[in-house]
Structure formats: structure tokens, C-alpha cells
């Protein structure tokens, strides 16, 4: 193709502001980037062109700060059908099935308008998945908020949860999992990461690659309004810096139209009517058309005067940059247009021709016959300068890692358990997932509340286990270990249900990469994630980067979130997280070394956030995962639950308290071997990885232990499950403390009431939504 280097012609749209250095700065483009633009056009860009560049060369679209690091991630594997670069990653499943999945952030919009911001985040990720020809079958969400004692944080929390729920509920996709954590750094910087999982027949996979000069581009779905203009570049700067005027207009979600769009899109793909299709997400029409053209190595010409608009007098600039939701861009052969419009009409939608594929490699925009933008397409998508920011760990972080708690604990080890269960980060998130439909589609095998959600693949005997995890406290203290922990915990959660971890998608939420300590966190966290993915054979199939998560309050904790998909070969063998029957044996898998560094225990009981998080033994994690899968397959497990926040004591308590709506609790008599004579608090609350609490019926214990030996996983019989209503008693070997004992029923009250209690105070959120 002839694109690169061509000097092109374009005229300013009548009445359009002229491009001055001030205007360039407003568009968030550096001098270097602007010089690049001048060079590749051979002239001053029109405002429309400037807007197009500012969107596609924003961090959000160009990954200009992060691409070199992202390239180091493992993306290959026999199970990989589609790696990074498309709208979602795709992995192979048995019987010709495949799973498409992706996670994406909607942090900035949710900070401005929690309900709509979160809702449209869910809408965007759903479109990324059904664009691939996949039927969405599960949603997950990972949330970060400031402490709940602050009214603004409660308002954000309530609005975000309601927004996530209302959208997914209305479209009819079950939410099967997620996580929520609270830390001061998220006050004013809430994080909303939404993940969608979809199923398709591998042969029906649709890739978003435009080709065939003369083919038609159609805009399908909602009309284009002035919503979210500049969203992409807005998402690429500090909230504190975004001046009021630059604040984009709030995008409002319409899940009803989304459902129709979903049905229409899947029908178009299944009937083979389209060449390519992509949703108009960040930077709307601009990114969808430019990216599809670049992937296919062709040019496109768009006529913005043909785009159906919601408001009169919209300029090409506004139409190209609008982020109105629930829109798709379709590429089709001319003779298919009528058929496509018929399908759209059947779903109460319109599909309007707005341009065509060309062979000159140019990205051209015309309006009423005037060419307002003409840019070499490949340079537009690939030509953004790439930066290699400086990375240096902050001395303060090093100091925090080396520090140890001082002063007295709030309570003795026994008293710590209720305190931990009342901590909103550890407490049950039922208040959240109760607002999400988790049973629609009637394929839910394990809903929210356990380790991973499990769904059955329709018409088959196998299923998928899904989980999202990330511990920002670990990452803040040691970015590389924190990255490894995120993958390890997600994989453990999936394996606990009996499913083999298959692959991940990840969302990296960080601060301003121009600050060396932030970029250090980013680079190191990626290294940790990459190492873990290699060790577990779970490639990265895609993801999303959200930088500049800073407000006057400061930057967020570095927050990489890992979304894992696993294969459960026989859904009837799924393993729940909770004890099932009295007199089952309690078995500790993995080794307890009593590592308290970076623990919730230190944070809650000593008010100290620091120390070095436990080092992840990747080999041990992988062995544990294989054991859990094998044991589940052999039907040896009554239950399996991973040990993470709060260590053994919290894990055991969760096993006894039972599922979210358990009619009864079970007791347990636990005896914890303590060969190295560590203090009780370390044994009870240490957060060493590669561990799980399992239970097995008396008849299967020997087999389980043998299997553990065969997998080289330390396993110890650590007591019995006891009767409903009985106490949870834990004896730590060799410690002077007497056995500690709690009533599961009382723990349950604390655990399930912790968040409702704090959210009882109602604010504007009661008026949110319909």
C-alpha cells in the first residue's frame, strides 16, 4: 500500500477553530507528537485531524508508554485461538467450542458519574465480546474504593454497584464473580474493571479486519450524540488536570438497545452477512474504523454527514470523537447492505451506510463533500511515538517493605478473627452480588460467594470457572511479587472448584507513568504476571491499561487485576468452597510458614500496612493447582477453599459459615501442625501462598493423601468437620495459647453484616437508576 509518507490534502470544516499551539496542548499531544504529525502530513492538521490523532495517540488507544513492557508477556499456547490485538482473546475448549473473554476499566467515567460510568463500562466489555461472534455467558467485576467511613465513597460504591448490576441484569448476562477492596488511595479514584466471558463455536470466530476495496461501512445501533467527546484522551490524564471545559459530557447507557445490538450482531455474524464488525468504544467512530482498516491493511473513507446524529449541527470533529454508547461499525459487501438492514430492523435497530473501504491506505473523512481529514492510515494507528519512561522504586516503598509493626496488637489472636471478618475487604460481598442477577441463562453451577464462579457450556457436560483477583497491598509493597500473587490467587480460585486454569486477561490500573516510581510499579508488576503465566501455562490473551489514576488526593495503589478462565471437564464434579458434611476430614494442602509481612492481620490488628508480602513459590502453586484438579476429577473432595487474605483462620471460618444462603453452619475441630514452633498469630493469620483448606469424606482421605504425595504437595490431616451449630475450634501445635474457639453462627453475623451495616446510611444513590 501507498499510505506512508504521502502528503495529503484536507480542508478545515467551516467555522472550525484553527489549530494553535494552545489547541494542540488542549488535545494532550506533546510537541514531539505534534512534530510527528506535521511530518507525516507535510502540513498543519485540520482540527478534525488533530482530534483524530489525539484520540488514537492517547495512552488509552496507543499504549505509547506501555507497549514495550506489554510485549514481554507470554501470549502463546496450544489453547490460544486469538491472542492480544483483537477485541477479545479467545481460547480453545473441547468439542469445537471456544471462549472469548476480556477485562476493561471504566475508572475515570465512574469517578465523575458512578452509576452511568459503571453501567457503560459493562456495556463496552459486553460489546468487545459479542463483536467476536461470542454469546456473553458471564460477567465479573473488580472494584476498588476509598474507605466506607467516608460518605462520598459510600455514594460512589452504591452507585457503581447499581450501575454494574442494572446494565448486566437488563442485558440478561449473569454476574458470576468479582472482588472489592478498599484503601485510602482510591478515595476520588474509584476503580471499575468489568470482565465479560462469551462462548462461540471456534469456526464462527469473527475478526475485526476490514478488507475489500469498495465494501461498505455501516453504523448500526444508537444515534451519535455529543457524549464523551475526548473520552479516550480524557482517560489519559489526571482527573485533577482535566479542566472543567475538557470534561467530556457524561455517557448514558441504554442496556435495552445493547440487548438488541447483541442479538442483531450475533445474527449478522452467524448468517455470514458481514466482512467485519467492531463496536465504537473509546474514540468511537475514529478508533473502530481506523483499527479495522489498519488490521486489514486498507484505507477507509467516512462521510460524517451520513452518520445519524442525536443533535443538530454536529461537526465532523464531534461525530468522529463521540463516545455515544451502543453503536457498532459494520463492514459489508455492497450487495449485503439490504439484508443487513433487514436484520437490524427485525431487532428495532437501524444500520446506515456511512463510508467505504478504499485501496489508497488513507484514513479519509468527508463532510458534505469537503475532505476534512486525510491521514495515512497505518501511521495513524502505528505511528505514535513510543516512550520508555524512567523506572525507579520510591525509597518510601523500600522503607515500607522493610518496616515492621510497632506497638501493641488491638487484641489477642482469638479476638482478631471477628475483626478481620468485619473488615470490608475480607467481609462477605453479598451486599454487592445480591444486586447482580447470577442465575439468568440457567447455566450457573456455582454462583458468587465462593472461590470462582462456574457455569455449564450449554448442551455439554463441561463448564468454565471464572475469577478475578488482585491484591493491591502486595503490589504496593512489592510490585513483582504482587503481580505473581494476582495470577496465583486467580488460578487457585479456579483450581479450587476443580477446573484447570486456561488463560488470563488483565487490567492494569496505575498512576501517572511519567513518575519513575509509578512506572517502576507498572514494569515490575508486569514482570511478576508474566513469570506466573509462564509457570502456570496460562497465556495472556488480552487486557487493558488504565494510567493516570490520580486525583488531588494522590495516586491509587498500583492495581493489576487478573481475570482467569478455567476448564471444568465435568460440571457434576465441581467442588464448592464450603464444608459439606459433619465428620468429613479436614485437610490442609500446602505449607504454612506463618508469613505475616503485608498481611491483613497486621493492617487490621496493628493498624500497620507494610512488610514484604509472602514470596510466591510458582512451582508449588502449579503443583497445588494440578492436585486440586486431579482430586476433584477423582471425586475425592467434599470442599476446597483457597487461603488468601486473613490466612488459615479466615479460610476455616469461611468453610464453616457456609454458602451465602446456607440454612446451617458447620463446626470444625482443627489441629494445625507447627513444626517450627511459630507464634499462634503467625500460624493462624499468615498469608503464605500455595495453600488450600480441603475436606474429604472419611472413605476418600487415604486416596487424597496419596494423590497429594504423588503431586509433591504437602498435605496433613488437620481434624474433622463437626455438627451444625458446633464451634470452630483451632489448636495450634505447641503454642502456649489455649485452643481458640468461635461460634460460626456469630462469625456469620459479623461476616455478612459488615458491609450492609456500613451502607445502611442512604444518600443520593436511592434516587439512582430507574
Amino acid at each position, binding site marked *: 500500500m501507498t499510505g506512508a509518507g504521502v502528503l495529503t490534502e484536507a480542508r478545515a470544516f467551516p467555522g472550525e477553530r484553527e489549530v494553535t499551539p494552545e489547541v494542540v496542548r488542549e488535545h494532550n499531544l506533546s510537541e514531539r507528537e505534534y512534530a510527528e504529525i506535521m511530518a507525516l502530513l507535510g502540513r498543519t492538521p485540520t482540527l478534525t485531524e488533530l482530534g483524530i490523532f489525539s484520540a488514537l495517540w492517547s495512552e488509552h488507544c496507543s499504549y505509547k508508554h506501555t507497549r514495550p513492557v506489554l510485549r514481554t508477556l507470554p501470549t502463546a499456547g496450544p489453547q490460544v485461538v486469538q491472542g492480544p490485538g483483537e477485541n477479545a482473546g479467545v481460547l480453545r475448549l473441547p468439542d469445537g467450542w471456544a471462549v472469548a473473554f476480556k477485562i476493561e476499566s471504566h475508572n475515570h467515567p465512574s469517578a465523575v*458519574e458512578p452509576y*452511568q460510568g459503571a453501567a457503560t463500562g459493562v456495556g463496552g466489555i459486553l460489546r468487545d465480546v459479542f463483536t467476536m461472534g461470542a454469546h456473553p455467558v458471564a460477567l465479573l467485576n473488580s472494584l476498588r474504593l476509598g474507605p466506607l467511613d467516608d460518605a462520598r465513597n459510600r455514594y460512589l460504591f452504591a452507585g457503581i454497584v447499581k450501575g454494574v448490576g442494572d446494565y448486566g441484569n437488563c442485558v440478561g448476562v449473569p454476574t458470576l464473580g468479582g472482588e472489592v477492596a478498599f484503601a485510602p488511595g482510591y478515595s476520588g479514584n474509584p476503580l471499575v474493571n468489568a470482565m465479560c466471558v462469551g462462548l462461540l463455536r471456534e469456526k464462527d470466530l469473527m475478526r475485526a479486519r476490514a478488507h475489500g476495496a469498495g465494501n461498505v461501512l455501516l453504523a448500526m445501533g444508537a444515534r451519535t450524540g455529543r*457524549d464523551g467527546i475526548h473520552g479516550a484522551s480524557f482517560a489519559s490524564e489526571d482527573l485533577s488536570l482535566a479542566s472543567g471545559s475538557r470534561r467530556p459530557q*457524561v455517557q*448514558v447507557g441504554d442496556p*435495552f*438497545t445493547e440487548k438488541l445490538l447483541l442479538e442483531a450482531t450475533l445474527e449478522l455474524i452467524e448468517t455470514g452477512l458481514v466482512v467485519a464488525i467492531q463496536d465504537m468504544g473509546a474514540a468511537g467512530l475514529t478508533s473502530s474504523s481506523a483499527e479495522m482498516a489498519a488490521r486489514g491493511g486498507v484505507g477507509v473513507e467516512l462521510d460524517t454527514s451520513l452518520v445519524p446524529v442525536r443533535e443538530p449541527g454536529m461537526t465532523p470533529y464531534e461525530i468522529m470523537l463521540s463516545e455515544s*454508547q451502543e453503536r457498532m461499525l459494520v463492514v459489508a459487501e455492497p450487495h449485503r447492505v439490504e439484508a443487513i438492514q433487514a436484520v437490524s430492523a427485525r431487532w428495532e435497530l437501524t444500520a446506515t451506510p456511512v463510508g467505504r473501504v478504499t485501496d489508497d491506505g488513507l484514513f479519509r473523512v468527508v463532510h458534505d463533500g469537503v475532505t476534512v481529514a486525510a491521514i495515512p492510515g497505518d501511521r495513524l494507528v502505528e505511528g505514535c511515538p513510543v516512550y520508555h519512561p524512567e523506572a525507579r522504586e520510591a525509597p518510601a516503598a523500600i522503607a515500607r517493605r522493610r518496616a515492621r509493626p510497632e506497638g501493641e496488637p488491638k487484641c489477642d489472636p482469638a479476638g482478631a478473627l471477628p475483626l478481620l471478618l468485619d473488615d470490608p475487604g475480607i467481609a462477605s460481598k453479598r451486599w454487592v452480588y445480591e444486586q447482580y442477577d447470577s442465575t439468568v441463562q440457567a447455566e450457573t453451577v456455582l454462583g458468587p460467594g465462593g472461590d470462582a464462579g462456574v457455569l455449564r457450556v450449554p448442551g455439554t457436560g463441561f463448564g468454565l470457572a471464572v475469577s478475578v483477583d488482585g491484591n493491591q497491598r502486595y503490589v504496593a509493597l512489592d510490585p513483582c511479587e504482587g503481580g505473581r500473587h494476582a495470577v496465583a490467587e486467580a488460578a487457585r480460585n479456579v483450581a479450587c472448584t476443580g477446573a484447570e486454569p486456561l488463560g488470563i486477561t488483565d487490567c492494569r490500573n496505575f498512576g501517572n507513568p511519567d513518575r519513575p516510581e509509578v512506572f517502576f510499579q507498572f514494569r515490575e508488576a508486569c514482570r511478576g504476571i508474566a513469570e506466573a503465566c509462564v509457570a502456570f501455562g496460562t497465556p495472556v490473551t488480552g487486557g487493558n491499561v488504565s494510567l493516570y489514576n490520580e486525583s488531588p488526593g494522590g495516586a491509587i495503589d498500583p492495581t493489576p487485576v487478573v481475570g482467569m478462565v478455567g476448564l471444568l471437564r465435568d460440571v457434576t464434579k465441581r467442588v464448592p468452597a464450603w464444608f459439606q458434611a459433619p465428620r468429613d476430614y479436614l485437610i490442609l494442602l500446602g505449607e504454612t510458614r506463618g508469613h505475616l509481612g503485608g498481611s491483613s492481620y497486621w493492617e487490621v490488628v496493628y493498624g500497620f500496612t507494610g512488610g514484604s508480602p509472602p514470596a510466591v513459590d510458582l512451582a508449588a502453586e502449579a503443583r497445588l493447582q494440578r492436585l486440586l484438579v486431579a482430586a476433584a476429577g477423582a471425586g475425592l473432595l467434599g470442599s476446597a477453599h483457597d487461603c488468601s487474605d486473613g490466612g488459615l483462620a479466615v479460610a476455616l471460618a469461611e468453610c464453616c459459615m457456609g454458602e451465602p444462603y446456607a440454612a446451617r453452619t458447620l463446626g470444625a475441630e482443627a489441629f494445625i501442625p507447627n513444626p517450627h514452633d511459630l507464634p499462634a498469630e503467625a500460624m493462624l493469620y499468615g498469608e503464605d501462598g500455595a495453600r488450600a483448606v480441603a475436606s474429604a469424606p472419611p472413605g476418600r482421605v487415604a486416596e487424597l493423601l496419596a494423590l497429594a504425595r504423588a503431586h509433591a504437595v504437602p498435605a496433613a490431616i488437620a481434624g474433622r468437620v463437626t455438627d451444625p451449630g458446633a464451634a470452630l475450634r483451632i489448636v495450634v501445635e505447641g503454642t502456649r495459647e489455649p485452643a481458640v474457639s468461635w461460634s460460626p453462627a456469630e462469625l456469620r453475623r459479623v461476616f455478612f453484616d459488615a458491609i450492609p451495616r456500613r451502607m445502611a446510611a442512604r444518600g443520593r444513590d436511592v*434516587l439512582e437508576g430507574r
Partner: protein
Amino acid sequence: ILPRAGLLDPQGQAVEHALAALRFEGATNVHVGRAIALDIAAASAAEAGAVVRRMCDKLLANPVIEDYEISVENGGSP
């Protein structure tokens, strides 16, 4: 309390279509929002209006996406 001009109003659109389908011609630019009715004790209508305005700014309306209008009716003396 109505959605800000320019913002997408899916409810308004749905109602507009439904009205058209029911042969109510000529209903245009339909918007659906919230109505809040309350009694307050105030010396004057003006004062009542001022209080309610503060209520709207603080709680009842969401300034990011909504505009509001206030109308005061005198409920007669206490």
C-alpha cells in the same frame, strides 16, 4: 428533575415511540425524569423555594446529569 439537555434519554425515547405507536401524533422531545413532592414549613414561598433548591443541589438532583425545576404551592397556614 429531568435529564440534562443533550444527554441520551433512553426512557424518553421509549415513551416517545410508544406514544407514536398508540397514535398519539405530534408528541415530541419526550423526557422522563423524577418528580419529588414534599411539604416543608417555611415562612414564605420564597424561603421554601430556597430550602428546596439547597436540597436539590445537595441530594435530590444529580448536577452531573440532571437539571431541576421547583414549584411551590402554598399548603395554607399551619
